[in-house]
């Protein structure tokens, strides 16, 4: 359960996507521990009420978030945080994106438009990202160029097909992201 005693540096990558896209499965495939869950309270403005009062109603909601861990070397541990992609979680995004290496954005080729709010958040918080097109069982594969076009991605954003249930495939998607991050430094 404990980290190796020499581990001194923790880094994080966010695994983001809309509900049901496979974030937790992806984390479970890569994590060395059973994925864990944090619960936390967020405040959010109730939309649609008191628009003119200047004091929007605030409500408190408990959000559960799954995460995993992978010891990378004697000194470095990587945490993967599953991050919900809705606008109402932007308070959490602020903290989660701080210091994050980047984000793996999982998309469902059958529900590409559901990924727009996710991409909006990723870009707003300045995260470098790669797209993992999660290949669900029995779905037809889509040409990646179509996905790229539908999501209006820049030419340099990597897009890979993956099956996040498969450990190597999920890891390959992460490797694609890390290679992309390195390419931006070099």
């Amino acid at each position: 359960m404990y980290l190796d005693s020499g581990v001194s540096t923790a880094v994080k990558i966010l695994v983001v996507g809309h509900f049901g896209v496979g974030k937790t499965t992806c984390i479970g495939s890569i994590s060395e521990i059973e994925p864990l869950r944090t619960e936390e309270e967020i405040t959010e403005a109730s939309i649609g009420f008191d628009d003119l009062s200047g004091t929007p109603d605030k409500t408190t909601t408990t959000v559960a978030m799954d995460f995993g861990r992978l010891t990378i070397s004697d000194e470095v541990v990587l945490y993967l945080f599953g991050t919900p992609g809705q606008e109402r979680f932007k308070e959490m995004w602020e903290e989660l994106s701080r210091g994050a290496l980047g984000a793996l954005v999982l998309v469902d080729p059958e529900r590409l438009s559901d990924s727009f709010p996710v991409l909006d958040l990723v870009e707003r918080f300045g995260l470098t990202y790669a797209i993992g097109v999660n290949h669900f069982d029995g779905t037809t594969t889509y040409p990646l160029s179509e996905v790229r076009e539908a999501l209006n991605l820049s030419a340099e954003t990597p897009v890979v097909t993956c099956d996040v249930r498969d450990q190597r495939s999920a890891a390959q998607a992460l490797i694609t992201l890390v290679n992309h991050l390195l390419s931006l430094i070099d």
Partner: protein
Amino acid sequence: MRDEPDHDLELTSPLVPLFVITNGRSLPPEHVYERTTLVSAHEGASAAARTLSPEARLVLDLVMDGFLSVAEVAAHTHLPLGIVRILLAELEESGLVITRKPVPRAERADRELLNAVLDGLKARFGA
């Protein structure tokens, strides 16, 4: 907009109100305890544990034998992340825990770290 607010809240609401657990303390600034801040009990911390609240003690006991991230402390104790942060602030002020904070981002550190992450992923998954 909100059909079942109580259902959500019941997930984490302990039998005592949260402000009791934390002695009425408020949240420390978030950056003090990131999810990835690593925490371990200070040597000799167990002797002092007697005077702590049950929840602070739960946290301290958990990290008695090694380092865990703040996120893991919250997950294993089933306490909300915000409460864990407050309890850790209390424990650190009393000299009972030590922390290793995540390195701030800097280009050179990033390159080294990213290479380490890349090598680690490749070695681990044979990719």
